[in-house]
């Protein structure tokens, strides 16, 4: 097991290096450069000044030297550079926003699982029942509804018309102290974005859980258990569910970084100050370092969650380790 884990971690290192090179190349491919912006601010700069500035910024160096310098700053000091728009270090900016995104993705992830898994099991056990058809319909709705539109509709009904939840932001300005007060205050702001972000993964996982469960209850060992006279409840929850839920766990692990894509649009709709909205604004306002740093963080997250999913899978299914 340990050998397998170490081998997988070793495989990750070249991938991370490739990611950083790709990110840096993309950053260089972006339109405009810092000098051009300075030139716009002061059009009377001489050729000599421009050349000097290029030297000071290190822009006259070849690609690999600049890459190594950039990477060195990240690795030794955790320095991702300065944001052009906000004039603060990128790390500070990310630190301010990351917490909100973690809450958003985390809560919508938990909501999706809590809804999808029980309903998937229910649909599989009562295949072709009225309830199954209802949830199949719901799954089609979840797959097809564009989440920015769903967000706008929810906002219109529950925030503007009924006034049950606030129309944007992430917490109230004045909250009575105490854990539960703060928790419910945050929840009021989170509930709509959480549903908007979670609906498509909810639909997907529901269908996936249903089909794995259907597959498992047709296996021979379930028939054997039935023949032995084991109670139906025990067959379902002890024999079938354990095996049916395993593939779902890996799927769900890999979905966490993918949810970030949905977070961009959800945060944009709900004016929720998180990483997704920061990324969007960085692109719109030509704040390229911020955008690129966020992309790199996502890519690294993808690699880490892939690794975790692999290790988890190897842990539950020993056959994997020997291939």
């Amino acid at each position, binding site marked *: 097991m340990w050998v397998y884990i170490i081998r997988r971690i070793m495989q990750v290192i070249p991938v991370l290096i490739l990611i950083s090179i790709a990110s840096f190349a993309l950053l260089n491919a972006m339109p405009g450069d810092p000098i051009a912006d300075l030139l716009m601010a002061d059009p009377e700069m001489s050729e000599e000044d421009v050349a000097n500035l290029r030297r000071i910024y290190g822009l006259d160096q070849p690609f690999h030297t600049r890459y190594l310098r950039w990477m060195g700053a990240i690795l030794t000091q955790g320095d991702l550079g300065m944001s052009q728009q906000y004039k603060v270090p990128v790390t500070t900016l990310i630190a301010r926003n990351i917490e909100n995104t973690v809450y958003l993705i985390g809560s919508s992830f938990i909501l999706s699982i809590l809804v999808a898994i029980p309903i998937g099991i229910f649909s599989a056990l009562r295949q072709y029942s009225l309830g199954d058809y209802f949830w199949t319909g719901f799954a089609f709705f979840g797959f097809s509804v564009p989440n920015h539109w769903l967000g706008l509709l929810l906002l219109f009904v529950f925030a503007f018309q009924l006034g049950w939840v606030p129309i944007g932001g992430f917490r109230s300005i004045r909250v009575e102290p105490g854990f539960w007060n703060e928790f419910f205050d945050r929840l009021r702001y989170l509930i709509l974005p959480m549903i908007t972000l979670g609906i498509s993964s909810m639909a997907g996982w529901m269908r996936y859980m249903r089909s794995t469960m259907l597959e498992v209850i047709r296996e021979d060992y379930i028939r054997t258990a039935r023949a032995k006279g084991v109670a139906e409840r025990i067959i379902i929850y002890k024999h079938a569910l354990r095996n049916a839920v395993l593939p779902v766990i890996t799927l769900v692990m890999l979905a966490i*970084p993918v949810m970030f894509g949905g977070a961009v649009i959800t945060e944009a709709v709900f004016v929720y100050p998180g990483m997704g909205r920061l990324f969007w604004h960085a692109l719109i306002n030509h704040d390229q370092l911020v955008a690129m740093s966020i992309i790199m963080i996502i890519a690294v997250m993808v690699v880490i969650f892939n690794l975790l999913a692999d290790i988890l899978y190897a842990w539950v299914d020993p056959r994997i380790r020997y291939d």
Partner: protein
Amino acid sequence: MANNKDNQKQEMKTSEEKRVFEEGIIEHKPTSFVKIAINRFFRHKLGIIGLIVFLLFAISAIFANQLAPHSITDQNLRNRFAPPTLTRVYPTGSVATPDLSVNTMNNGEIFSRDLTFGIPSWYQNLEQDITSHPAVSHDNLYFGTGENKLMALSLSNGSEEWTTDLGQNIEMVWGTADGVMARSGEQFFHFSADGQKFWEVSIPGTLDKFTGTLERPLVITDEGEILSFSIEGEKQTLASLDDAVPETAHFHEGNIYFLSGGYVYNFNLDEKELTELGSINGITDEPVKIHYHQEYLFLAFSGGLSKGFDPEKGEVIWDREDSGQLISVRAGEEHRVETFWNNGSHRIINLETGGTTSSRMVQGFSDIHILGTDELGRDVFSRILAGGRVSLSLGIIVSIVCVTVGTVVGATSGYFGGVVDSIIMRFVDFLLSIPALPILMIMTYILGPSFQTMIIALAILGWMSIARVVRSQTLSLKEQDFTEAARALGATNRRIILRHIIPNTLAPVLVAMTLMVAGAILSESQLSYLGLGIQPPTPSWGNMLMNARQYLTTAPWLAVWPGLCIFLTLLSINFLGDAMRDALDPKLKGRD
């Protein structure tokens, strides 16, 4: 129900076999497979509904120009007010009088619009850069140009009134009660309305934050000094704000309202008293504007966020977010302010609720406009038709490109195997697990957002899922007897791939292709919603939704129609794909 279906299938199978047996014909396999697939498809009710709805959308997209009751191009030409975002041409500012609003562009173009009728008034192209925000006083429009000139145009027809060369770059211009005040670095100039220079003063020190007013020329320095000027140009220090240095300020009837370090302050000029009104919690964006109007404060931040603030209660009462960046604000009727944005939009915001009363142009349903009109008075129904054309054609083109590339790569990679195959598939697996939207946003940003670049970006990310499907099919097909037979007959690899492998992968590819149309339409609408896709004034369902966000309180139908179209298209394609999967892949039947 399941048993019933199975019986039907059984019956059909036996009757088919009987017929083949009785007539003694052995049918050519592909035709019978196609027939069976079509039969099976038409038993899928939802699939038929999906097909019909999709065809309706496709037909209305093809005949969009004929069906549209109002011409899109005519309407856009009438509204040359919305310059494209993310380009090097941008407005340096907007000003407005009660019946006219003017946008000055950095390339020297000036658009003006009659606010009573919502139609363009005059247009002027100076063919030299405009460097400053424009200002208005005494029926004149003032601004600084790239040739260091202070220029005054007549507001009624846009003709030039007078020009003075100041010899240096003009950064700021304000209208005053006597004429116009201009700033260049540390120099401040004051001119009369007919171009006579009153005075010129130099104020040393960094002067990044200040405000000018119509009532009297007033400057706030970076150190928090409030300076005022006499008509002869003598400056006098009115007061000092000490530590609270304003990030943005507004002067209103003897009071200066300003934002500093996340707090809102009020400074009374007569009593020289500084009051902290309250905090604006949880905002990391840079303040852009503060405006006092009818007992409320309007606060705007970089990136399109704005807040309403009640100075009495000392708290934020609403927040909202719009696309673009605020350029200027002016008082409107009752509790409303009129705002002007760098993407050309003009919004009237209610300070009590934060809702938008769109300019007079948004209308509900009527005989002429069956789905109403949008914020620029354009017919929503015509725009939906045109937007559908953009979205559907983009989805179909992307899926065709992806299928071509994906099939070729998947088939060759799977057929030849080896190191190249495993490297390609590793790469594909990694890219498939990365969230697509941020990557698409980066790509359209680098390539410059347009219809063509969106096709490129979506195709770059889309071919991989097809390649994976084709590859897994190829792996099993190349081991089959008919491939062996073809090889034994001396067929080249090329021939085997083209004639034997690819045709056999068509069924799953067709399903994946259908679903890809849906994926591309969704991505298009999301990118356009974020302003990185189809650029206004070209309509697409995504950018129509983006505009509708601002009018959610007053004109919700603007958000309903385009979203409903995306939803119905995606739903019909998903039904269609599901039915096709069942029809084309007998192995999947019953597993569902």
